[in-house]
């Protein structure tokens, strides 16, 4: 059953919240005396009108437990991401700073999905208000648009379970608290705390207030938008790089675990967690290999090798996508390692994209079991995660997910080749969008100029970003015919 009225109503409420956030952002142009005020006002106004219209359509929907089906949840989540991006792009478009709507939409979707790919060639020419809105889109999208709005403002009272399930990240859902709204609030608390700590640390490292806030928002969201053309390299400060590395890594950990460590003092939960161990090991292993090869093959000294390796491995594994230097100038061997890390992603239940370490762990353990099965044909071989045997259905869905993920990367690769992008860049672009990294690998540098891509390529990129952000199935599901049958 699809309940059109309930869907309209929830979308209406969500849009009203976006209108409110846009209106708050309009304070910045007033404060800095810049000319992007009209863009925010228009964006807010249109979002509010459309939101009210939706609420009117859905007014008579009965607010009843169990009235919302799983299908409704998936539809609401998919549509709200698209609608948020449409209305979120209005400030750029109306104020004239991004004159093409395609570009404005690309920039916003790249923001909400925390991809961090930008069509802007001169970021520093943007007014403060738009720069802040750009960072804020990442922060809102970091934990998921619907999750963020529903957890901050528990206004629906119904359907939260369905909504969260449709937007949830990761193959297994451990709940923190019996009630989903309470868990949501706990997670948001961790998120806000990380952001605040990051902003304060960056300020202490000598960054300006505006820049530290913006970078903190994008770091906690593992988004990767910077207010500077040269990204983090602009600040030319080792301490800034280390601080950002630390907070990127922190934001890549499951927020539920962080909550238990920070507020319940259960450090053991972290050390017992299979996914965290894999995440840490992969990060350290890749850093070590890359640092050594940098030391051997480039003029970097020891400290610089380690720093650069650590920064970029973390930025890519957490799918943040900050840079301090163009790593495609390093030996191609290293690109391939980074390219591999792009698939991995950090932990499920964090703000990062990619396939997530837990799936990698389950994949590897399943593979190992296949080998064991050849040696011991009658053995019953379980896959354990954090000491618990995972059910076969979870294993199955992880395998299916991985196949889909690879297939989509290849599909994207073909598509970009078809519209005339070089073979290496096309692969890197496809992976950068699907994993929500925004950094690519290829002959044209890690920050290819997305602005030069044909319009159809930009629209396709936004699609890949959304598919990657909502973990493949949520979006593909509503594109299947059977989803719409038997209404």
């Amino acid at each position, binding site marked *: 059953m699809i309940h059109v009225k309930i869907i309209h109503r929830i979308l209406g409420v969500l849009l009203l919240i976006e209108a409110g956030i846009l209106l708050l952002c309009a304070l910045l142009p007033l404060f800095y005396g810049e000319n992007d005020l009209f863009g925010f006002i228009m964006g807010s106004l249109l979002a509010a009108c459309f939101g009210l219209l939706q609420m009117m359509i859905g007014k008579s929907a*009965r*607010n*009843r*437990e*169990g*009235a919302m089906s*799983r299908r409704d949840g998936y539809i609401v989540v998919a549509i709200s991401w698209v609608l948020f991006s449409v209305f979120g792009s209005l400030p750029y478009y109306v104020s004239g700073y991004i004159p093409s709507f395609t570009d404005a939409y690309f920039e916003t979707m790249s923001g909400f999905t925390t991809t961090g790919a930008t069509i802007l060639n001169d970021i520093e020419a943007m007014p403060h208000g738009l720069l802040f809105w750009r960072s804020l889109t990442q922060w809102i999208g970091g934990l998921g648009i619907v999750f963020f709005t529903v957890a901050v403002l528990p206004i629906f*009272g119904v359907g*939260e*379970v*369905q909504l969260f*399930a449709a937007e949830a990240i990761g193959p297994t*859902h451990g*709940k923190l*608290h*019996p*009630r*989903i*709204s*309470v868990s949501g609030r706990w997670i948001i608390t961790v998120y806000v705390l990380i952001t605040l700590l990051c902003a304060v640390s960056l300020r202490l490292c000598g960054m300006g207030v505006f820049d530290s806030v913006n970078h903190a928002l994008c770091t906690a969201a593992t988004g990767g938008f910077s207010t500077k053309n040269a990204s983090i390299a602009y600040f030319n400060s080792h301490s800034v790089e280390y601080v950002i590395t630390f907070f990127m890594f922190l934001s890549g950990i499951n927020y539920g675990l962080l909550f238990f460590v920070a507020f319940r003092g259960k450090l053991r939960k972290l050390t017992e967690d299979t996914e965290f161990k894999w995440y840490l090991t992969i990060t350290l292993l890749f850093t070590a290999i890359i640092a050594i090869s940098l030391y051997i093959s480039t003029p970097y000294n020891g400290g610089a090798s380690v720093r650069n390796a650590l920064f970029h491995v973390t930025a890519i594994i957490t799918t943040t996508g900050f840079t301090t230097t163009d790593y495609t100038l390093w030996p191609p061997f290293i690109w391939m390692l980074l390219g591999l890390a792009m698939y991995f992603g950090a932990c499920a239940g964090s703000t990062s994209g990619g396939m997530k370490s837990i799936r990698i762990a389950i994949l590897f353990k399943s593979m190992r079991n296949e080998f064991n099965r050849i040696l011991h044909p009658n053995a019953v071989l379980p896959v354990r995660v954090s000491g618990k045997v995972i*059910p076969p259905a979870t294993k199955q869905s992880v395998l299916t997910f991985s196949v889909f993920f690879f297939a989509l990367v290849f599909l994207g690769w073909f598509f970009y080749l078809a519209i005339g992008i070089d073979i290496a860049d096309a692969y890197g672009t496809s992976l950068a969008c699907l994993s929500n990294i925004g950094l690519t690998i290829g002959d044209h540098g890690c920050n290819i100029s997305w602005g030069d891509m044909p319009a159809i390529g930009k629209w396709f990129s936004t699609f890949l970003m959304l598919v990657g952000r909502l973990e493949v199935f949520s979006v593909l599901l509503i594109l299947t015919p059977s989803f719409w049958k038997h209404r």
Partner: protein
Amino acid sequence: MRIVIAGAGNVGTHLAKLLAGENQDIILIDESEDKLSRMDSSFDLMTIQESPVSLYGLKEAGAGAADLFVAVTPDESRNLISCQLAHFLGAKKTVARIDNYEYLQPKNKEYFSSIGVDSLIYPEMLAAKDIVDGMKLSWIRQWWEFAGGALVMMGIKLRDNAQILDKPLAELGKELPYHIVAILREGETIIPSGNDTMQAGDLVYFMTMKKHIPHIRKIAGKEELPDVRDVIIMGGSRIAVRTAQLVPDYMNLKIIESDINRCNRLTELVEDRVMIINGDGRDPSLLMSEGIQHTEAFVALSDNSETNILACLAAKRFGVTKTIAEVENIDYINMAEKLDIGTVINKKKIAASHIYQMMLDADVTNVKCLTFANADVAEFNVMEGAKITRSLVKDISLPRGVTIGGLIRDKEAILVTGSTQIQPGDHVVVFCLEGMIKTIEKYFN
């Protein structure tokens, strides 16, 4: 309230669904991943896949901080152990489902609380009680008591001979000794206003006081129905034994059981005034020879839900006025009700609602809630300065689909009409369509 439910069987899941709708913190613990995953993905609760009798599992589920611990696995000894462990961990109150009548005896209560089991529920006992209540007032389909019995609500199926048909409610007169709170017509629930009428075939819910019950029986056209004196029970199950122990002396009971060994055992379990007959309860000639035509109530309690439903339909053909069927298959309940079987008994549902009621009684919050026929019943304590107290009931524009049934003031029950003035401190019983509780809550706070 933090409520831990051990066992995700029919009782456990039914209870969890009821409570999750009430914004309680529900943790469901069971060993079966299959049973849990279905609940986890569609209801606002947490599931823990562990054994209900493992200390580790109970700790994981937070049984130590639980306000209420409910053990409803199919096995009574596991339930008792589970409750003991939860009590040991620090659960405030524990409830175990049991299958043994001896445990329920008052003299054993102290022993069970000493080992950490605060309450016991015995679904067969509760079911037997429901059956006997249903037979005592055979013309009533459903029956609820509010505020300790001061107000009662009853669901009655109206036939052509009722006196109050086809008249708008407003024309029935003022100062009626009853209040019609809901009408169930062809599967649709109507919360009536003054313009609505009652029609033959409607299931009408009356709110009234106990002293007015004879009057309602008269206007509902149920006076000529004979009281139940002769009862035939098909199937000598444990419920049948409990029922036999509970029926009042004026009723004559016959139990038909096909297994001769069970029959012999039954003769030891029940008193002499109950006749045990060995045979198949579905056999018309046997029923005829046992005088089914002169029997007022037929109760089908065999292990098989389908058999029970069919046997009741057959009994109806013989002219039995009250039929009661035990239907353990939850999916069949609606169907059985549609087939006009007087009362449908489901042990699991009864057990779940009983625990639910226990929880409500223990809860100090304002709203109590009960769902019947797609409508919610809520009890409110009216606050000082609440919106509802500002004028007469008819002058307050209550939303459509809401009606105030009655209230308790100074321990006295009053039925509410348009000209009633509600005062702070009143305890009000409100009826509304499902999901409207939140909307009407603001009128009372």
